[in-house]
């Protein structure tokens, strides 16, 4: 099977790290301490999670890469706010008839900040380097690439071992798609001094705390007119409380935020701060059942949970920008169907009768649910716990940090978990693997029927309609079987000073992560 090869073990690691980082991003905190806000001489000052290294070889997953390095690195493909692929360094791309070759046409007016030209050789140098990076998430992302061929200066062919559309996701991500100067790849210190084709160069970097970028000054160096408007960009790691205070005091201009806006509601009302919802955030939040353990091995019990959860109240109380979600699939990925949202409406009586039908009329001990100690999840978990208690399901909660949660879940050590679920990808096949396939997230792996439904969904030969229909069948099956007790499709947001503009044109939105390349300040 797909999960048995060595490359896919690395991919599993990457998948785990994705979950960890997604939660970190969505919680809007990175755990580091705040510095004094840095760039006094203006520029765009952002509070966002920051890794200890800017080297993609050391990054566990694409989101972590993208958050802090978008001023430096451009990607081959980007994802627009409507969740569609768009050109970036590659102007066009096309799969061959057998789906095993992807041909990319490249821009010819781009140089790296160290003066090296961006061309097909540079793309090959990058992809070959990534594929050879033993044990990294980069290598895992490119595991399906068999060879990279330079056709001419502006054309490159990527050969695939198996036909799969997942390569587009990789090339649009920070891990696999971000292009590094070949010179820096060979001899540079990528951890502290990334060199890319973007509008900025690193001025200073304090690992895990702050990175300051200055605009590149070479003639014609900035190829994308929409980028590079602020002369400086600084990204500072702050905990949520520090973020709010820094925003209120004007110490920073912009911060990521994905919880209720209560802490700065007064400032929002008076116009001192703005809040922008990131449309199309592809993050699912819900109860993931361990179907290898009692009592959630019984579909009737899982169905009862689905009827017992009052999604609307939870969303209204803790995540007002989110969408209540019944089907375990995000709106924005092929296969979503609004029609399924009317199933499992809140009905405690129905839940009770289902439990009675399953033989648990006198109540049931459902063991323990792991809860990510992040954002609104603990509060949502306690609400779910209380609702389940009302219908006779006794579920204990264990709040743990995200990393502990992912590890414990992968070892099948709890009966359920409440967690953010996302992959920075538009590919329905990647999403199917994330939600129903990968044994790291689905203890015991997919059942036979699901395996059958997923097979071949990444074939580039399928038309988009066929792909959407087949993904929809898998989602319907997962819904009928109550694989999840989904609660909502999470939203991310940005809090900003009114002088921050360009937030209506957020590039590369995927899984709630934004590239702020088009953002600028206007006094």
């Amino acid at each position, binding site marked *: 099977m797909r999960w048995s090869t060595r490359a896919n073990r690395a991919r599993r690691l990457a998948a785990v790290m994705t979950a960890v980082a997604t939660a970190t991003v969505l919680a809007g905190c990175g755990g580091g301490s705040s510095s004094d806000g840095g760039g006094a001489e203006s520029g765009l000052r952002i509070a966002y999670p920051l890794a200890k290294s800017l080297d993609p070889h050391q990054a566990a997953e694409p989101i972590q890469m993208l958050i802090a390095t978008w001023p430096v690195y451009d990607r081959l493909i980007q994802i627009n706010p409507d969740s569609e692929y768009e050109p970036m360094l590659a102007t066009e791309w096309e799969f061959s008839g057998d789906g095993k070759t992807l041909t990319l046409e490249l821009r010819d007016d781009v140089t790296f900040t160290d003066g090296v030209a961006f061309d097909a050789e540079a793309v090959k140098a990058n992809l070959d380097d990534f594929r050879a990076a033993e044990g990294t998430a980069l290598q895992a992302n490119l595991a399906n690439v068999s060879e990279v061929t330079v056709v001419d200066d502006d054309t490159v062919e990527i050969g695939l071992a198996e036909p799969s559309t997942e390569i587009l996701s990789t090339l649009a991500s920070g891990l696999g798609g971000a292009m590094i100067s070949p010179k820096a790849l060979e001899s540079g210190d990528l951890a502290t001094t990334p060199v890319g084709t973007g509008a900025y160069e690193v001025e200073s970097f304090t690992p895990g705390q702050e990175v300051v970028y200055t605009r590149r000054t070479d003639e014609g160096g900035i190829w994308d007119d929409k980028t590079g408007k602020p002369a400086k960009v600084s990204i500072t790691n702050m905990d949520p409380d520090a973020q709010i205070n820094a925003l209120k005091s004007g110490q920073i201009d912009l911060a990521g935020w994905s919880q209720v806006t*209560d802490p700065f509601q007064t400032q929002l009302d008076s116009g001192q701060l703005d809040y922008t919802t990131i449309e199309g955030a592809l993050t699912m939040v819900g109860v993931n059942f361990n179907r290898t353990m009692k009592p959630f091995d019984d579909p009737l019990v899982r169905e009862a949970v689905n009827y017992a959860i009052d999604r609307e109240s939870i969303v209204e109380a803790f995540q007002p920008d989110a969408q209540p979600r019944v089907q375990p699939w995000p709106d924005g990925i092929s296969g979503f169907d609004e029609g399924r949202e009317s199933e499992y409406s809140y009905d405690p009586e129905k839940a009770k009768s289902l439990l009675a039908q399953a033989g648990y009329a006198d109540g049931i001990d459902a063991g323990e649910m792991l809860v990510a100690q992040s954002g609104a999840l603990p509060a949502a978990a*306690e609400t779910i716990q209380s609702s389940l208690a009302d219908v006779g399901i006794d579920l204990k909660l264990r709040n743990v940090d995200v990393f502990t949660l992912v590890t414990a879940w992968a070892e099948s050590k709890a009966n359920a978990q409440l967690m953010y679920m996302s992959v920075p990808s538009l590919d329905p096949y990647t999403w199917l693997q994330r939600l129903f396939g990968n044994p790291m997230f689905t203890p015991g792996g997919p059942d036979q029927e699901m395996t059958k439904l997923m097979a071949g969904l990444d074939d580039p030969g399928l038309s988009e309609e066929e792909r959407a229909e087949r993904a929809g069948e898998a989602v319907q099956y997962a819904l009928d079987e109550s694989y999840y007790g989904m609660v909502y499709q999470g939203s991310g947001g940005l809090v900003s000073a009114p002088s921050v503009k360009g937030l209506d044109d957020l590039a590369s939105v995927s899984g709630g992560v934004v590239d702020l390349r088009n953002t600028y300040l206007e006094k």
Partner: protein
Amino acid sequence: MPEQSMPEQSVAQAKTAGRRRSWRRSRVMRRLMRNPAALAAMATLVILTLIAIFANVLAPHDPNHVDLQNRLLAPGAGHLLGTDELGRDVLSRVLVATRVDLLASLQAVGLALVVGVPLGLLAGYAGGVGDAILSRIIDALMTLPPLMLAVVVVAILGPGLRNAMIAIAVLIVPSFYRVARGSTQSVAGELYIESARASGCSSWRILWRHILPGIAPPLLVQISFSASVVIVAEASLSFLGLGARAPQATWGLMLQEATASITTSSYLIYPPIVMVAITILAFSQLGDGLRDALGRQSNEGK
């Protein structure tokens, strides 16, 4: 015959000593009663204990019932202390938390007593190499930063109130050990112990019947102070998410939940803070009173 009269004499001596102890105790009690702060502290602790016992009867609502339609209500007629982020009645939760917190501190102090006192007795009475080794181990334990040690213990055992209490017990074992050891050393040299030994009492009997009652007063003071330390430590660990588990209410957990909505509903932090402050004050005032009563007593005895 001196061999026969000796035991009789020592028995008489021991009896006198016993009488002197009970006489002392009543003196201590009287002194304590004359100390208004200590008296108020005792009254407070009695009230808290009653609250703890009858928490379920006193609580006007189910402390764990989530009601999202009525979340973050200000204090008012329906909910005297308002409702929390999940719409649960704060008054009910504070009352039930009193039971949980007092029981938890009882557990931690009890465990520390059971471990620390026998070790201290043995080390103080036997002395020698065993005492030296044991004392160095306990000294080493005391050099570790207390909260970090608790966090590590909880990390190993897993979160949860019982494990948090075990962690806190580990923290306060050294203080019980040292008090027990020091007092044992000074009591062990007294004449009535010598005579008990001469009359053929076994070491166990001497430790249990003669030394332990002798060292009880300083231990009582230690228990009182430790109880307040435990309350604070429980609150800290719960605040860090290492203590009690939802939906169980403890003061620390309530405080942690209250900070989440501090900008909009700041009143939520007061009930648990007030309860923690009152309880700590009561325990430490009682400790102070006990120490004063006993301290003057021993001076007089000289």
